C-alpha cells in the first residue's frame, strides 16, 4: 500500500540500492539459526517450550522477509539482464517498473528487521499527557490528544485503562492524564509520540475568531512489570530504603479514632529525586501500586535516554529520531494538515488522525524514518570496523 504524499520536503527514493553485504551476513546467520531450531523442534524431545516458540516466531518473521527479499532481488536481476536483449527490452522495462517499488518496500522492511530492536520494544506502555503553553486551549488540546490515543488503542483493540485524569476547572480540558495501555509491544508503536505537540486553530474559547498556537506534552513510558505478576511486583523491584513512601494523612491518633477517606500516596525515589503522587483510587494500596508502576516506568525511560545519549556521543553524526526536540508535530486545523517535523511528513486529514483511526499512517512513516537513520549509522560503524 502506498500513501499519497503532500507538502513533503523529500521525495521517495525510487532508485534501488542493494542491502549492504555486512547486514546481509546477519540475515544469513539468522536463517541458519532458524534451520537449526527447526531441526531441534521437529525432534520434539524437549516438549513444548514457550521460550523456544517465541524465539522461533521471532526468527521466522525475519527469515520470511529475507527469503522474500532474495526472491524479489533475483527476479529483478534477471529482468535487468533482459534489458540488454533488444527484442525483450521494452517488456522488461515495463516489468521492472511494477516490481521495483515492491522490492524497495521489502528492502526497507528487511533493513528494519535486521537492525537491533529497541530494548523495550515488546513492552506495554504508559502515556502521560499534560498541557503546555496556551492556557485553557492547551488543556482542551491535551484532552483531544488523550482521545486520539484512546481511540487509537480501541481501533487496534488494545486494552487500556485510565490511571488518573485531572480535569481543569471548566471541565473541558485536562490538567494531567495518565493512561496505561496493556498491549505488549504498544510501547514500540507509541514511543515516537514522546515530545511536544503543537496545535494551530481557532480555539472554542476564542470569541474574535483568531487562530492561536498552543502546545501539549506527551511522555511515553515502557511498562516494566508483567500483568500476570502480583500487583506489588513493581514495588518489589526496588531495594529497601530506595523509595520513601509518604501517606498523606492528618496527624492524630488514627486507627479506630478516624475513618477519613484520604488515600493519597507519594513516592520519592531517593537516588534520582523523582516524585510520583497518586490519589485517584479510594484504596491506598491501589494508589501505591499505580505509583510504583509509574515510578518504575519513568526510571526505565530515563535510563534508556542516558544510554542513548552516550551512544550518540560516540558517533560524529548528530541525527536521532527520538531526541526531544522542542516540537515534534504540528496540528494545523485551518489547513486540515498534520506535519511531523522529524520526518517531514504531512497528512491532510486532521479528523481521522485525531480520532486515532489513521494515526498508524504517521507512525509507520516514523518507523521507516528511524530505520533509515539507524541502518545508515550501523553501516558506518560496520565499515569503520572492517
Amino acid at each position, binding site marked *: 500500500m502506498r500513501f499519497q504524499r503532500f507538502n513533503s520536503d523529500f521525495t521517495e527514493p525510487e532508485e534501488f540500492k542493494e542491502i549492504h553485504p555486512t547486514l546481509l551476513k546477519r540475515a544469513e546467520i539468522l536463517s541458519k539459526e532458524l534451520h537449526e531450531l527447526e531441526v531441534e523442534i521437529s525432534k520434539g524431545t524437549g516438549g513444548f517450550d514457550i521460550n523456544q516458540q517465541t524465539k522461533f516466531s521471532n526468527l521466522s518473521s525475519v527469515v520470511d522477509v529475507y527469503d522474500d527479499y532474495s526472491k524479489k532481488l533475483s527476479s529483478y536481476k534477471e529482468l535487468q539482464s533482459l534489458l540488454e536483449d533488444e527484442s525483450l527490452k521494452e517488456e522488461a522495462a515495463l516489468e521492472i517498473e511494477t516490481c521495483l517499488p515492491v522490492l524497495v518496500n521489502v528492502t526497507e522492511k528487511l533493513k528494519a528487521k535486521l537492525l537491533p530492536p529497541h530494548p523495550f520494544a515488546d513492552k506495554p506502555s504508559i502515556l502521560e499527557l499534560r498541557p503546555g503553553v496556551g492556557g485553557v486551549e492547551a488543556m482542551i488540546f491535551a484532552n483531544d490528544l488523550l482521545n486520539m490515543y484512546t481511540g487509537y488503542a480501541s481501533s487496534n483493540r488494545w486494552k487500556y485503562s485510565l490511571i488518573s485524569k485531572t480535569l481543569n476547572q471548566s471541565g473541558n480540558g485536562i490538567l494531567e492524564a495518565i493512561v496505561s495501555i496493556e498491549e505488549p509491544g504498544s510501547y514500540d508503536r507509541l514511543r515516537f509520540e514522546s515530545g511536544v505537540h503543537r496545535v494551530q486553530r481557532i480555539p472554542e474559547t476564542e470569541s474574535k475568531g483568531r487562530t492561536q498556537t498552543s502546545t501539549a506534552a506527551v511522555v511515553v513510558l515502557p511498562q516494566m512489570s508483567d500483568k500476570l505478576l502480583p500487583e506489588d511486583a513493581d514495588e518489589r523491584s526496588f531495594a529497601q530504603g530506595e523509595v520513601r513512601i509518604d501517606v498523606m494523612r492528618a496527624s492524630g491518633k488514627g486507627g*479506630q479514632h478516624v*475513618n477519613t477517606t484520604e488515600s493519597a500516596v507519594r513516592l520519592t525515589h531517593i537516588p534520582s529525586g523523582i516524585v510520583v503522587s497518586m490519589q485517584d483510587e*479510594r*484504596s491506598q*494500596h491501589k494508589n501505591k501500586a499505580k505509583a510504583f508502576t509509574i515510578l518504575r516506568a519513568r526510571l526505565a525511560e530515563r535510563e534508556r535516554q542516558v544510554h542513548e545519549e552516550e551512544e550518540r556521543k560516540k558517533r560524529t553524526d548528530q541525527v536521532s529520531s527520538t531526541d526531544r526536540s522542542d516540537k515534534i508535530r504540528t496540528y494545523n486545523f485551518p489547513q486540515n494538515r498534520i506535519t511531523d517535523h522529524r520526518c517531514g511528513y504531512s497528512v491532510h486529514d486532521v479528523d481521522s488522525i485525531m480520532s486515532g483511526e489513521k494515526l498508524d499512517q504517521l507512525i509507520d512513516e516514523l518507523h521507516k524514518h528511524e530505520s533509515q537513520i539507524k541502518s545508515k549509522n550501523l553501516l558506518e560503524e560496520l565499515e569503520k570496523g572492517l
Partner: protein
Amino acid sequence: MVRIPTNLILRARKKSSLLPLLLKPCKTIDSAEQELRWIQNELPQNQWLKACYLRSNNVPLQYILGSQPFGDLNIKCKKDVLIPRWETEEYTLKLVDQLRSIKESLKIIDICTGTGCIPLLLGSKLKNSSVKGIDVSEKAILLSNENKVLNSIPNVEFRSGDVFDANIVQEKYDIVVSNPPYISADDFKSSSTEISVRLYEPKLALVGGNEFYTALVNNVLLSTDAEGFLFEIGYTHQYKHTRNLLNLNQWNTCLYFDSAGNARAIIGWKKGSKMQILENIR
C-alpha cells in the same frame, strides 16, 4: 468544630453545586472534589444529592457508597459494623508477606472480625490456609458471610462468639489476629475521636480497653496453643499491658508502628517457633 470560611464555600459552589455540602466533612476543596468524584463514579446520578447531603451530616463515605477497598478485595460496609481502616489493611498485607514463606497450611483465627476484612484478605492470599472469623455481633457475622460470597473466598468461615467466654474456641490454631475495640471511654467523648466515627459507627466495636487484651490472651491465645499473634492497639499502654500477661521466657513481642508513625499493634511469637518470622514485620 472548625468554621468553614465563606469564600471557600463560594469557590466550591462555582465548581459544583454539590461541592459545598462536602466541605463540612472534608475541610479542603481538593479532598471534597475527590469525594464528589467517587460519589459520582459509584452511584447513579439520582442519588448524588442525597449522598452529598448525608455526607454533610458526617455520615461516613463508606456507608454511603456501601463499600471499602481492602487490599485487592472490595469489602461491603453496612451500618452497625466497623469500617475497615487503612492501618489494618497495611499490617494485614505485611502479615501475608511473612506467612507466605511458611509452606505448610496454616490455621488462622481472627477475633472481633467485623466486616470479615482481615480473614478474607488472609484467606484470599494464603490459599492453602484455613481461616476462622469470630464476632459477638450477629450483624457482623451476616455481613462477613456476605463479603465471603461477594469475594468468593472458600477457605474462610465465620461464626458468632464472645471473647469474654472462656470456652470461645476449642480447636488449635497457629496464629491469632484481632482488632478489638480499644478507644478509651474518655477519648470517645473527646475530639480525638472523629465526629463521624462517634455518631455513626458502632460503639460496640470502638470503646474498650485492657480487658479485651486480657481476654484475648487468656481465652484465645493460650487455649489455642497458637505460636504467634497480632493485636491492633490504640495506645502504647495497651502494648505494655498485653506483654505483661505473657510468660516472657517463652514469648517475644514487638511494638509495630504504622506508616503514619502511630503505635498500631503488638506482635508476638513463641521463641524458636515457626512464627519467629513475625519479627520481620516493620
